[in-house]
């Protein structure tokens, strides 16, 4: 069997039904095999788009996302998506073509040392040197991508080797002696954690994207519900806990709620689950949660005590650990009334510092209202993807996610241009869900070419463009911290977005009156194909509240 046909067999054995990519010289054999392999291939317009689409697919479905690219520029165009996937722990496999083996290292046409280039940003990578190794390599890649702390795996396949005739036998297990992720969690530590929870007077449960990755939202909610524990989830963890629940404090961190941040600040116990104490959450590390002890549950031992020293570390899979922790906690029969005083304190903050913004009397659209209108038009049920910047933070603050995998964004790397291609991938994964991309005007233009893919491949994503004519977050920082020296933050001659959408064959709409917003969104959602809605919002609105960079939760402004 040709090695490339074996690759198709391996992909099918791994349960892959959709792949994203672009063909080129070095992966011609792969595309020849793909021609009648029975997989759906989404032909993207830029490899970065293919990479983010694979991420969106993975984040929406929980399956491994797959992107294909040719050697050289095709492969280097994947780099941002690979870095994005490692930062947000997205299970992805990238298959790149490589020049044929006799050209490797000679600066051959379209040669780039992609495994070298991506070495610091992959979970693992494999450079194929023997065609007989290919089937095993593909299965290893999927195994590593999806197990433990998920992440991107690159398989680089030289063109000549991919055309080799190899004996193919289905591979049923992979053997990686150096790779044995811990899943179970130490029971003694779990008991200690349960005791600490029972003794805590001011506990906060702090969940992250790891809960979503572990498909452990149900188990997480059960733990939180085993007592009246206050709950906060990071940007990546939104949806793991329903935002309409009484125990919900909002998101923590730079643009989180004051309630969540003040609660962390005064907590005596913080239970971190699948979260990594990112600098955007902690603010000034030396002043973060000074009174708290920490329980840290994570599948990646390298995260434990990386930023914040863990008093009770538990390494393993949240899905295995949380039910045990809940059971151990319940068995202790802790008195729920011990949390009364803590909740009074929290209620005080909630009443005093609700999220809010100045309403407008005329038709002017406040960006925060735009998110609320989106919520109303979609009944709060859409899968929402976003780009990076102010609109991303407003979506996190105002959309009120209630289920995991409903919120797809680039948290760790902060990749502008992530929204549209990831929405495309999410829609392919979940065709029955409404998928909305909340875009920024600075971000959307970075990968707008994927609108062509959406039209061509009939992927009806709805792009709601929060158009403020600026690189809004940078503008905000220049206003607040750089003496209003606005340097290169105006978008200037932006395209006519409606015409642009139409040029791609999509529908374009323009809304600049807040009274037309909900109706306009509903109209867009009712359309069969992709729609781009250009929403003109207040151009110089700032995103608040905010912990200024390098300061502590106590120093929140706005």
């Amino acid at each position: 069997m040709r090695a490339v046909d074996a690759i198709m067999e391996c992909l099918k054995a791994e349960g892959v039904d959709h792949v994203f990519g672009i063909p080129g010289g070095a992966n011609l054999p792969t595309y020849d095999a793909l021609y009648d392999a029975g997989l759906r291939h989404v032909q993207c317009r830029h490899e970065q788009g293919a990479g983010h689409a694979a991420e969106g697919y993975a984040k929406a479905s929980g399956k491994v996302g797959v992107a294909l690219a040719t050697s050289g520029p095709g492969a280097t165009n994947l780099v941002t998506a690979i870095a994005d996937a490692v930062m947000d722990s997205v299970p992805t496999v990238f298959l790149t073509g490589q020049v044929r083996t006799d050209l490797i290292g000679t600066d051959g046409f379209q040669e780039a040392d992609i495994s070298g280039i991506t070495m610091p940003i992959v979970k693992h990578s494999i450079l194929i040197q023997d065609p007989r190794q290919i089937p095993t390599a593909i299965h290893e890649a999927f195994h590593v991508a999806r197990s433990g702390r998920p992440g991107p795996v690159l398989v680089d396949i030289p063109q000549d080797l991919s055309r080799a005739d190899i004996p193919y036998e289905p591979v049923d297990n992979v053997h990686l002696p150096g790779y044995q992720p811990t899943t179970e969690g130490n029971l003694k530590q779990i008991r200690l954690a349960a005791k600490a929870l029972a003794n805590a007077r001011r506990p906060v449960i702090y969940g992250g994207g790891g809960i979503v990755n572990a498909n452990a939202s149900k188990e997480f909610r059960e733990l939180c519900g085993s007592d009246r524990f206050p709950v906060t989830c990071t940007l990546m963890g939104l949806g793991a806990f329903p935002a309409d629940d009484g125990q919900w404090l909002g998101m923590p961190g730079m643009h989180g709620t004051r309630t969540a941040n003040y609660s962390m600040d005064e907590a005596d116990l913080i239970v971190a689950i699948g979260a990594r104490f990112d600098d955007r959450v902690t603010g000034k590390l030396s002043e973060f949660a000074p009174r708290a002890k920490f329980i840290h549950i994570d599948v990646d031992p390298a995260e434990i005590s990386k930023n914040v020293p863990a008093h009770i570390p538990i390494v393993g899979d949240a899905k295995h650990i949380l039910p045990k922790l809940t059971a151990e906690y319940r068995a202790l029969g802790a008195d729920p009334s011990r949390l009364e005083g803590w909740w009074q304190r929290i209620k005080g903050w909630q009443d005093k510092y609700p999220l809010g913004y100045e309403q407008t009397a005329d038709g002017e659209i406040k960006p925060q209202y735009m998110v609320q209108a989106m919520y109303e038009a979609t009944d709060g049920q859409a899968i929402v993807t976003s780009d990076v910047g102010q609109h991303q933070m407003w979506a996190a603050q105002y959309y009120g996610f209630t289920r995991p995998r409903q919120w797809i964004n680039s948290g760790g790397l902060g990749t502008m241009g992530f929204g549209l291609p990831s929405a495309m991938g999410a829609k392919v994964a979940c065709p029955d869900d409404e998928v909305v991309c909340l875009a920024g005007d600075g971000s959307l233009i970075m990968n707008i070419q994927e609108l062509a893919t959406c039209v061509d491949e009939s992927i009806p994503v709805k792009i709601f463009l929060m158009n403020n004519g600026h690189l809004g977050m940078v503008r905000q920082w220049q206003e607040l911290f750089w003496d209003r020296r606005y340097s290169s933050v105006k978008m200037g001659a932006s395209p006519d977005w409606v015409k642009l959408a139409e040029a791609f064959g999509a529908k374009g709409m323009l809304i600049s009156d807040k009274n037309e917003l909900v109706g306009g969104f509903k109209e867009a959602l009712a359309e069969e194909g992709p729609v781009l809605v250009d929403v003109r919002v207040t151009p110089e609105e700032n995103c608040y509240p905010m912990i200024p960079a390098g300061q502590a939760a106590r120093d929140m402004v706005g």
Partner: protein
Amino acid sequence: MGEPGTKEVLNLEDLQVSGGIRTGRKHILSILVENKPGVLARIAGLFARRGFNIDSLAVGATDDTSISRITLTVDGAAHPIDQVTKQLHKLVHVIKIRDLEPEETVARELALFKISCQDGDARAQVMQFTEIFRGKTVDVSKRSVTVEITGTEDKIQAFEGMVRPFGLIELIRTGEIAVARGRSIT
């Protein structure tokens, strides 16, 4: 070997004969580098890029603290080496590279053998071999002996052959270091 445009299927034999010029001998590359973070990664990356396996690698200080010596062996029968040495030269922190001719080189490696010895007889035999190979016994326990052997790769392999029947618990090697014979500077 098949342009990208062709769709011919290649058989495994054809693939195995392709590739650049191979010298058929082992190469000992002695590389002087500036002692800067990341130098080793850059050098290793050049080999990885070509899919080369480094057989052994030893890194250490020189008489100048700002300069380190990397001694690296690769199999020339498996990989064409000259391009790599040229590429290594282009690395900013690499000062000098010498591809040492085996006949004009003194090469040494240190190996630690942990050998299973169930009784006094076995231990006596192992210690006798150690003496013949001019090694040192560095640790003894009731059921094992640890021996240090210094020498060429061949010598270490020969010793390994002698003690393997006793039960080799562990073998740990440093990788070769080498110096040019005569007055010339490595």
